[in-house]
């Protein structure tokens, strides 16, 4: 189980080309397929994370790690 939706099509080379176009990133010839496979693998992991409810949590600005008083309590 990679956590990815069964109905979701796999990432393909055209998807990577479109994302790279949006990012303004020139890709090496022959690299697109490898990136599609890597993105597909990462997406499987990230999709599980999307299912975690954190709607009430603020990301705490630039750093997600809150400053501490020194005793480990927030």
């Amino acid at each position, binding site marked *: 189980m990679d956590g990815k939706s069964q109905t979701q099509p796999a990432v393909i080379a055209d998807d990577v080309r479109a994302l790279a176009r949006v990012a303004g990133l020139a890709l090496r010839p022959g690299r697109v397929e490898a*990136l599609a496979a890597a993105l597909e693998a990462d997406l499987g992991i990230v999709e599980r*994370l999307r299912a*975690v409810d954190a709607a009430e949590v603020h990301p705490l600005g*630039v750093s997600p790690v809150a400053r501490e008083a020194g005793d*480990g309590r927030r």
Partner: protein
Amino acid sequence: MDGADLGYLSLTDAARLIRRRELSPVELVESLLERIAAIDGRVKAFLTVDAEGALAQARAAEQELGSGSDLGPVHGVPVAIKDIIDVAGLPTTAGSRVLAGHVAREDAALVAALRGAGAVILGKTNTHEFAYGVITPPTRNPWNLGRIPGGSSGGSAAALAAGLVPGAVGTDTAGSIRLPAALCGIVGLKPTYGRVSRHGVIPLSWSLDHAGPMTRSVADAALMLGAMAGGSDPRDPATSDAPVGDLMASLSRSPRGLRVGVPRRYFYDFEGLDRAVGDAAEAALQVLGDLGMDLREVEMPLVEHTFALGRAVQRPEASAYHRARLRAVPELYGDEIRGDLELGELFLATDYIHAQRVRAEMRAGWLEAMRDLDILVVPTVPCGAPEVREGITSGAIKVRLLHNTYPFNLVGFPGLSLPCGLTAEGLPIGMQIVGRPYDEATVLCAGHAYEQAAGWHPRRPPLS
């Protein structure tokens, strides 16, 4: 003392002998330079050895002591700096062709702090390219030259294991201090996020990056962290004024009664955990119990999302830092890091922000779990050092190697790796002691007590 004795002299002993004027810092530097010349051709721990500069600093340190001036706790003691950290006048290449020829104009904040405490900068140690990997080619593991040292601070760990320097600095984004420390049989301390300024340190991932000491004993790590921790630094907004305290004094505290959390799920029941590592960890827990510590099983919430969080945070943060150079000189990056950086450009901002929210939730849960605990203890790395193989990539091995270290970067808690055994092949095994934020003192207290009771740390690799 002969060259090997000086090579393996502890940082605390070197500082004490120099202060008593029983050891000349010049003699120590000369001896280490001889060892580097004799050994480092095989280990390849150093990228830059500043022989002339180190000798000049050592002579100055000797003169200052002679005139009654004592700069601080590491006066005259040589240290090495990972090559993603700026040392004025020396190259900072990050182990990459991208920065070939780049020379730092000023010291990183932590280097300035070490110099202020009297340290002699011996040189720059090898790193996996831009600290984005776990192998550190071409550095080899002194315990077995056919094995990797780990990374990304592999040069610092290998230099210590080979007796080339008594202290070194590493950085740790997912385990890059603790992983090579474990694989090379030395001590590595990732302090609390924000404890040590990263000004002058090339970022990998801002919200995960830490800098800290690498040494051969827990006492040495305590001494070195005390010299590096400079309090709040406006140039690094993560830094804090939380007091560091007297870390050396913490070593003589009794560990009796310390409440030790043992998180079996994820850390101990990991399918990639080698039996030898599991056995060594259980033996270490037994030692902690014999020392009077109170062992309790504990559950760490959301830990199963560690690698999802890590990828969703680290990939885009790294790609953001490299954005301009990846477009200007993409051909100068190594293939693997170039692919990782390209991939990070394709992540959604909404996934990054969601990951930071889940991460904040995870951290809140861990602080709650730590409310009734002083430390956690887990194996540092699930296996011994992997073999050097043609075509080996970080991508193929990092999920296993970083499994038990990465969670503590996400929550920013301090983590100490120290030796706790050897595999059947004679490769080092490390255990990790983790504390509450800004409580490095308790981590070091427990680590020192274990180290003295278990006695693994004086072992040297079979490297002549």
